[in-house]
């Protein structure tokens, strides 16, 4: 920019945030997980060899025409309904015209002033506080191909000797979800994207993998001075749009960095330029892209190759009836039914075990035990094996059985871990492993009595100490009995027996 960075003092984030109120709006693109593309029958699998999933339609060959994929419409309506939107009874696709080598037709079929879904909201919770983020619109469009710039140092177009284009992605259905400028902190922005991701995952409309680009987010950020109580709010400032944020962490970091950058400019009396910006993961800073003030005129007009989309009320209601439980509804239900806390739910969701815990409970296990095993022991095993908890070779019904055996006194936690070892090793179900490995807690009194007697006889000095009042001398005796029993005894029972035998009980 015209002003050297050196003359601008960069405030700390906390200082910037204290003086300026960020106004944040988010545009999120979600690649829909339909089997075929938006306007042709080509497959949509990720990672296929370049240009292997293409046809005259998605290559934009002369004469080819688009035909709408009904599944994409249904998925978009599902998202719209889940976001509490109005679904248009009549809408149209529009052409967005601009030239770029990875866009086959040099226009993108999108929606302009007649989007499929409008006027919704999504509730987002951060630190126990609920923020309702307004949804301006949800519309359908087609993705572009992917350019690969070869020969440069950075993989960016600058310095590249040539570019390769892969059109496999061209024509994959996308929904664009645009919020109102309702978000006021980077944390809420991140939570919004996270909630949206969970929602799309629950609806099974996308695999929402940010690292693969199937969910990408653009953040519009502007600042305005905070005002004192009773003072009128300032109008919105000029915004920048940071494009293609590809992780939740990047969403939060990029917005924080924009807040600091813009505060620095405003402090120095500079104006904010309306422009698109790119976020650099390594430096944690944004850099200028093209300026919106010299931006392309997209010359939108209704797509003449497609007829208007007129969804009947019956269609929309049938989609509504088919909706699965949404993440927010599910959380409310889990809290009500099983007494989980918000923290529990966050932990279980982050660990990817919410479904597994529910299935374990459904198989008869008490909720706290199901939560405990799926949050600790089992994720550890999964991490060790390099798989997700869901991919472990133990089913929720088997975990429920292990929990039942513990509750019934047949297994200790330590023994249960060995049973899990056996199940994971493919030795059969919990009962089979217990039988085969002889892992059940020994409840036969004679064997246990003999072991207790032997332990007392073998350690007269510990017995003396105990009788002299050193009550914790019983610990090593418990250990000796457990060792003699090869762990197949309940430690509490052993302790009780020893105390009784030593005359303390």
């Amino acid at each position, binding site marked *: 920019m015209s002003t050297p960075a050196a003359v601008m003092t960069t405030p700390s984030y906390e200082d910037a945030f204290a003086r300026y109120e960020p106004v944040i709006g988010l545009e999120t693109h979600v690649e829909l997980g339909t089997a075929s593309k938006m306007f042709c029958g080509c497959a949509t699998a990720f990672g296929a060899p370049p240009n292997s999933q293409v046809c005259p339609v998605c290559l934009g060959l002369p004469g080819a025409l688009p035909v709408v994929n009904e599944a994409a419409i249904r998925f978009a309506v599902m998202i719209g309904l889940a976001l509490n939107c109005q679904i248009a009874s009549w809408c149209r696709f529009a052409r967005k015209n601009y030239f770029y080598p990875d866009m086959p037709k040099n226009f993108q079929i999108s929606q302009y002033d007649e989007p499929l879904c409008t006027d919704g909201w999504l509730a987002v919770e951060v630190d126990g506080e609920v923020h309702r983020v307004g949804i301006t619109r949800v519309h359908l469009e087609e993705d572009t191909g992917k350019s690969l710039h070869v020969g440069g140092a950075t993989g960016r177009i600058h310095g590249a000797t040539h570019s390769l284009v892969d059109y496999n992605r061209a024509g994959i259905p996308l929904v664009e979800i645009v919020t109102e400028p309702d978000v006021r902190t980077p944390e809420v922005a991140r939570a919004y994207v996270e909630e949206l991701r969970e929602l799309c995952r629950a609806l099974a409309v996308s695999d929402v993998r940010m690292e693969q680009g199937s969910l990408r987010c653009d953040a519009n950020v502007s600042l305005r001075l905070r005002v004192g109580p009773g003072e009128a709010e300032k109008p919105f400032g000029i915004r920048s749009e940071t494009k293609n944020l590809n992780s939740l962490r990047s969403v939060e970091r990029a917005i924080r960095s924009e807040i600091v950058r813009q505060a620095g400019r405003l402090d120095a009396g500079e104006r904010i330029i309306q422009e698109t910006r790119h976020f650099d993961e390594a430096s944690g800073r944004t850099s200028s892209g093209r300026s919106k003030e010299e931006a392309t005129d997209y010359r939108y007009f209704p797509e003449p*190759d497609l007829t208007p989309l007129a969804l009947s009320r019956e269609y929309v209601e049938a989609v509504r009836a088919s909706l699965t439980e949404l993440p927010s509804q599910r959380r409310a239900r889990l809290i009500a039914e099983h007494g989980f806390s918000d923290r529990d739910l966050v932990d279980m969701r982050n660990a990817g075990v919410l479904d597994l815990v529910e299935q374990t409970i459904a198989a008869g296990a008490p909720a706290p035990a199901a939560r405990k095993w799926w949050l600790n022991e089992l994720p550890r095993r999964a991490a060790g094996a390099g798989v997700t908890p869901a991919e472990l070779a133990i089913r929720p019904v088997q975990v429920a059985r292990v929990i039942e055996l513990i509750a019934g006194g047949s297994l200790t936690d330590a023994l249960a871990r060995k049973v899990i070892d056996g199940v994971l090793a493919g030795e059969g179900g919990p009962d089979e492993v217990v039988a085969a490995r002889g892992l059940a807690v020994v409840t036969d009194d004679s064997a246990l009595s003999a072991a207790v007697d032997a332990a007392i006889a073998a350690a007269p000095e510990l017995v003396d100490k105990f009788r002299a009042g050193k009550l914790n001398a019983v610990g090593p005796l418990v250990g000796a009995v457990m060792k003699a029993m090869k762990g197949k005894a309940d430690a509490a029972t052993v302790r009780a027996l020893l105390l009784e035998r030593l005359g303390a009980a």
Partner: protein
Amino acid sequence: MTDAPADVVRLTAAETAAAIAAGELSAVEATQAALDRVAKVDDAVHAFLHVDAEGALTAAAGIDARRAAGEQLGPLAGVPLALKDVLTAKGMPTTCGSRILQGWYPPYDATVTARLRAADIVILGKANMDEFAMGSSTENSAYGPTRNPWDLARIPGGSSGGSSAAVAAFEAPLAIGTDTGGSIRQPAAVCGLVGVKPTYGGVSRYGLVAFSSSLDQAGPLARTVTDAALLHAAIAGHDPMDSTSVEVPIPPVVEAAARLEVLGMRIGVVRELSGEGYEPGVQARFDEAVELLSQLGAEIVEVSCPHFDYALPAYYLIAPSECSSNLARFDAMRFGLRVGDNGEAGAEEVMSRTREAGFGPEVKRRVILGTYALSSGYYDAYYGQAQKVRTLISRDFAAAFERVDVLVSPTTPTVAFPIGAKADDPIAMYLNDLCTIPANLAGVPAMSVPAGLSEGLPVGFQIMAPAFADDRLYQVGGTLEAALDARRGHPLLDAAPAL
């Protein structure tokens, strides 16, 4: 079998197919006769951009073999056809009359092409046209103009001028054209042929390289109404590959062409499509045809369609707007011409240099016009306003069709003009489409049928019908054709000079 191939080319499509079906003529003989005729006259006419003799003879041999094996063939089996070079066909180049597509072999058949093949129609090759179907004279082809067989110094109409000239010069009994603002009907009129623009959505546009998506429609050119009907029936019908294709039964056009009566039909003469600017000979042939229909028992009604006066300006905003977007894909990246790729130039520069070199002046004019009309701040005043006019024109048609069964007008204000006469005056050229454009804007079907000659050159009579009532065109057109041929004592084309 006939041993007079020179006469074979003068047979109508229906006669050719009947001779083949009866074993009096083979498909190979019919095809060879057409190829011989092309070899003889096309240096002078230049109707074809590409002749696929080998493909045509192979297809014809296959048809003969299947007939010999006892297979029942369709009503046009073995009949040769010229395909406008705006429709894709595997095994042949598709250029759209443009440098920018030079050498492009499409990897797929247009739906119309596939239906022609399925009907055992023999595709001789690709017919010349105004570049990307933009023009009314075929002078805008990058590969040189086509000439009118009635007078080689005159234009054969456009944009389907190669198609019309091929049929008028007896190089093929049938041709496929496309009609965005009159591009089938005007060439049919000035070459003395029958040409039909079907109802929008009646014939698939899949594989028709789009000029203006909301207006383009492929249709038949033929020497008789019956031939046109047979070809119309062969290519029409719903296509799931084209969203704008409508799922309704094909109108009974072949039956209608044979009905030969208009008794009690109400025929509306459009007041706005006559008068000043219409050549006296054109107006006279039109008036005589109307009088003839009246004598045959039709009720003639004068009808006003006040918004037709705005059709031309509306068309010249909508068509260029859509074309500016449709032609964006010609960017040197995936197919066709590439200019300036010297290892240094970036993609944008290569795109720009290719488009500069690959598009002709009329295409550039319309792309620029359309880009402007769609641009921010001008959209409402131009494209938006034009769409409103379009709605009003549709309402004019709807109101008229409450009173009459068909509307009629001259097809063009003038007969074929000399090559070069209007080449430097785009507006004069655009006025050729004055009568034909309203039907495109409203999506209704329309036909041009020969009405006679003015100063030795053919005059066209236009019939317009409500959407999906294409059969009415054939009923009125067939009746008029029969009456005029009877009065004249021979088909109009017999009056054309020998080539």
